[in-house]
């Protein structure tokens, strides 16, 4: 029993859970409104799509790469999704489906080019970022699509029964669980982490790089697509700017969750908590009426703190490793 407790304590997400609870309670103590149903609802809404965006980046971090085009894919899907429904009167399910297909296609493109060219994904996705966003602007000429079907809009606002839980949160929750299972309990998932740990070893173990990398990018594109469409549901319009602001948070959450940019170490639960922390912070900034000029600084400091904490936890283990690492 004690050993399991110790094991839990070692987990990345444990510390974060504490942070979430403490900060949550602290804020609530000062501003009871923080725990009001509506506020919780708002919190969960903003968490919902950020969660998926973070996972879309996390899966790429897992294989030791970066995907700069997450936002561009999300934006492209968002406007295609709403555009198809407005301009071409396509039924919602079909629109969703084609949205997913586009996302997957974009992801596949990223993965395929990265694998075949052997160029760092950072560069490839930097280029595709231009391409996807370019198509987006080319199609929309910066004009939003407004006529979103009612049922889509409702989905964006509805709560489950009279709980404060938004419908929007359902899909992200399901996906988070699936991702956890995928990373920890499926062969492909483990192979991705193995690849992230050491490309060379993975290949010598007969793990196919191209399969791993392409799959990862497809998943990333798929998730970005879902996020894009959720944002449309939420905003109730398909504007070309969707996705422009995703890049930084997409990295912040996994990193706060203790992910290693070099690859091979990610934690779904911790990432989810990372998203929650970021959301709580930005809410706290509003609730406590922090001077708008001060907000940026605050966020930066928070990221640094989170990282320092993670580093400190690793530090001791490292000293041990030094001793163990034999001649």
């Amino acid at each position, binding site marked *: 029993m004690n050993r399991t407790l110790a094991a839990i304590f070692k987990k990345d997400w444990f510390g974060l859970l504490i942070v979430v609870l403490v900060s949550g309670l602290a804020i609530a103590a000062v501003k009871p409104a923080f725990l009001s149903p509506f506020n919780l609802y708002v919190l969960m809404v903003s968490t919902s799509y950020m969660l998926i965006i973070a996972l879309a980046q996390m899966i790429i971090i897992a294989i030791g790469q970066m995907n700069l085009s997450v936002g561009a894919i999300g934006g492209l899907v968002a406007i295609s999704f709403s555009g198809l429904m407005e301009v071409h009167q396509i039924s919602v399910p079909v629109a969703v489906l084609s949205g997913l297909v586009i996302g997957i296609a974009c992801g596949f493109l990223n993965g395929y080019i990265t694998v075949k060219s052997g160029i760092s994904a950072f560069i490839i996705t930097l280029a595709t970022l231009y391409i996807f966003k*370019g198509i987006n*602007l080319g199609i929309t000429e910066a004009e939003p699509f407004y006529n979103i079907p009612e049922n889509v809009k409702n989905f964006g606002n509805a709560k489950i029964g009279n709980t404060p839980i938004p419908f929007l949160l359902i899909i992200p929750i399901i996906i988070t669980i699936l991702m956890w299972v995928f990373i920890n309990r499926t062969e492909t998932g483990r192979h991705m982490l193995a690849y992230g740990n050491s490309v060379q070893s993975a290949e010598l173990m007969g793990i196919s790089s191209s399969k791993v990398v392409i799959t990862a990018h497809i998943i990333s594109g798929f998730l970005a697509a879902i996020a894009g469409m959720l944002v449309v549901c939420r905003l109730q319009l398909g504007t070309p700017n969707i996705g422009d602001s995703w890049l930084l948070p997409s990295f912040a959450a996994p990193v706060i969750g203790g992910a290693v*940019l070099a690859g091979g170490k990610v934690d779904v639960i911790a990432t989810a908590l990372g998203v929650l922390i970021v959301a709580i912070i930005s809410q706290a900034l509003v609730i406590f009426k922090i001077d708008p000029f001060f907000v940026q600084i605050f966020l*930066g*400091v928070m990221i*640094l703190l989170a*990282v*320092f904490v993670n580093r400190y936890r690793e530090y001791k283990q490292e000293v041990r490793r030094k001793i163990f690492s034999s001649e």
Partner: protein
Amino acid sequence: MNKKLPNFIFTNQFGLLFLVLIFIIIFSTVTDGFTSRFNIFALSRVIAIDIMIGLAMMVVILTGGLNLALGAIGVCAAMFGGWCMEVLGIPIVPSLLLTLGMGSLLGWVNGIITVKTGVHSFIVTLATMSIYFGFMTMLTEAEAFRRLPDLFTDFGSAKLFNKYVSPLLLVSVATCFTLFYLFRFTDIGRKLIAAGANPEAAEVSGISVSRMFIYCHVLSGFLGALAAILLTTRIGAAIPSMAGQLGMDWLLPAFLAPVIGGTLLSGGKLSVFGTMLGAVLVTLLTNGLYLLDVGEFWIRFFLGIILLLAVLLDRARELLTLKNVIVS
């Protein structure tokens, strides 16, 4: 560091030079006004700034890291310089020195944090970016400094070589040669590269890697400030939005130039002139695409396509030839 000439043909720079020439020929034939004096002058000025931004990022990429705070540093430095000139009334030269000092200082902070915590500079600079920028907006309340000495602002619009070239370009090119000397012909430069290529080996070989990494970040801040100065003379004022929200408008040119120029993202291999040509290529393309009526909304798309082709082309060349040039 091979000096045998025939190998030059297989270098990344040659490939880029080739592309640049091709596009120059294309644009000057199919578009009107590409070769107009006004356009060339304008180009020279944009290129100058993009080169400087590219170099500033390059020196951090050398360590295998990234400097997301580059834009923020640039703006902070420029605003500080503007403040020195306008509010404190300090003469131009000392003000500029202070500006560069500020840039170096902010870079130094990035370096220290990265080295001391061992956290990847991507994260560190991600954080410092919003911190620096936040302080800047807070202190300036987004008020621009535009009563700058005429002598200073005129420099940005001065025209040389019978009005074809901006002096800014000379500054950038001079900087390129200085950096080339640093990395190719000095012990410190060689140490910087070695530290970037394999920190453990460099450390064991008696190089203080952490110091080298800090130098790289300081140098990055310094060049960032220099780029900001050029930009300030070009827009005639120090304005908080000169690099966009959080200074992120600088990031794309900052990555593109070194990346296209053949600087290794994993560190330890850079190309000063490659970065220069990279910046030239990108600016050339944007300008050319604007001139060809592709429809402004599609410009990003075409830019992306061409960038992709450029890196793929370079990769193909790389696979055909065995690279052994570390600095060029």
